[in-house]
């Protein structure tokens, strides 16, 4: 469902061109569980951002569900992100003035879903994520693991086909990190494609397919 071919992405840093993606080809099928590893600055985050439509490549084609998404306008990109992609970040990125429920409902609010329907969709999710007694708490009243759970619930509320996690455990202790990975794997078993960017080899090797990125190129690919 994700087909990247010949993707290049360069950044201009201080007048110098930095090649973050160098002719990358990668195909990810529906329901796959993939992890991307590599040293810092290798371009793994850029790869994730391109898959997540937050970044556009300078050249190459990106087919998402058979549709070329490299030339979409702002409105269409936003709509595609909203419907197909769920993001999970290292630093959670919850809005501190909103409650857990409001944070989870944020993508629905942006998509223009009325409050009542938002609630109908968020309520079962909150319960199944074990946040039932935390629904009206604000992020600073939650533990790190709970915050990441809220962030994951926010990522999946629109039932996107792809979940993209950028170091989801990077800011958590070991046990809550493990819980979060289990939660993500459970969602993957439910059919959602899961792509995790990580430093942690333990997490990287749990994935069914492991892609290593070095200097903007795919150095190895265990599957595909």
């Amino acid at each position, binding site marked *: 469902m994700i087909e990247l071919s010949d993707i290049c992405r360069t950044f201009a840093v201080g007048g110098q061109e930095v090649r973050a993606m160098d002719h990358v080809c990668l195909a990810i099928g529906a329901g796959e569980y993939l992890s991307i590893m590599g040293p810092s600055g290798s371009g793994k985050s850029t790869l994730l*951002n391109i898959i997540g439509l937050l970044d556009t490549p300078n050249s190459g084609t990106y087919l998402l569900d058979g549709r070329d998404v490299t030339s979409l306008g702002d*409105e269409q990109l936003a709509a595609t992100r909203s419907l197909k992609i769920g993001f999970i*970040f290292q630093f959670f*990125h919850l*809005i501190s003035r909103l409650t857990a429920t409001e944070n989870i409902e944020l993508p629905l*609010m942006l998509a223009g879903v009325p409050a009542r329907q938002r609630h109908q969709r968020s309520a079962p999710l909150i319960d199944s994520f074990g946040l039932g007694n935390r629904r009206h708490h604000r992020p600073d009243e939650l533990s790190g693991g709970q915050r990441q759970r809220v962030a994951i619930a926010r990522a999946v509320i629109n039932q996107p086909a792809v979940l993209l996690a950028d170091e989801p455990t990077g800011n958590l202790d070991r046990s809550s990190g493990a819980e979060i990975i289990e939660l993500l794997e459970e969602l993957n078993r439910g059919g959602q494609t899961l792509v995790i960017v990580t430093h942690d080899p333990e997490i990287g090797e749990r994935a069914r397919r492991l892609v290593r990125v070095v200097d903007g190129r795919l150095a190895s690919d265990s599957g595909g």
Partner: protein
Amino acid sequence: MRPVDTIRFGLGSLGSNRVRTALMLLAMSIGVAAVVLLTGIGNGARLYIVDKFAALGTNLVIIIPGRAETANNTPATLVGETPRDLTLEDALAVMRSELVERVAPLNIGELSAVRQGLERQVPVLGSTASFLQIHHLQLSQGSFLPDEDWDIARPVCILGSKVYQELFGRQAALGELIRLGGYRCRVIGILDSEGRSLGFDTQELVIVPVAFAQMLYNTSGLFRILVEGKDQESLARLKTHIKTTIAKRHYGEEDVTIITQDSILATFDKILKSLTLTVAGIAAISLVVAGILIMNVMLMSVAQRTAEIGLCKALGGTRRQIMAMLVCEALLLSVIGGILGLLIGFAGAWGIAQVYPELTTTPPLWAVVAAMATALGTGLVFSLLPAGRAARLDPIRALAGR
């Protein structure tokens, strides 16, 4: 994103930084209050003065003997020299027109009024029955001058309320005799204490028939002639009528000055209106300053909230939505600040009205509308820059907090 959600999101964002919000509201509300209050006062002053003039009769044309070519409609004409007297016959001639509602010849001087050893210098005004209507005077007792031929020098008088009190105390005055400049005359009426006439204090006045006054002052001339037109529209024609009539009688010489009440009123109205507008304009500048403050604070706020904005983009927010969210925040500030300002402004206007009850300080509707429109306009215009900057933020960098 639904409008309700945009508003709620904006309110939440404003509510999360109370001090910042309060400061912006303060600036906005002071601006709006200033516009509303200052126009209210300006307008009140204008209405007050216009009202004073209107009390004199708005269709009034005043004929003054003597010509003032260069100083038309200024106080200088009021003390001009008289080459040829205006006479009762002039006044009668002017009256012969369908444009004229009523005419009152006027003669004025100062005489001593004596009654039983009490003596007092009073301005004595000679006129006719129609003076009552032209000057909107009210009687508290008795009757006004009889409506009869103007050249009958009937020795009767009407006393101003103060003159009455000083000469008679609490005694009945109707039918009593007083001495005016050596002539005996009978009191037939007392004026009401309401003295609302520009030029003289009617409380201190004694009014006698015009022919009697001419006899008292030993003159055949008139101080001026008051002509009340039938209506506002024919005032210009009335002026020409007066000019030609008098000129014909004065051997072709245009030796009178004609002032319309209307033109004085219009001049005052114009001056005060532009004053009000000027003051409102100055106040509106403070609103624009408030708008610039909103812009600065919003630029700061965008800088502080880059992560939030980047997040909204990552979660499917479009550029337009991000713009809308921030512009909505600014408009909310403008609306809330504006309403607060209106409340403060109206409270201030009410307070001033308590201290100066003769001033109607109610701000005019246009000022309210203009103040709110300026508040909303500045909110909109000055939020576009920060909102546009937010909308163009690169979500990756924004999320990274850079």
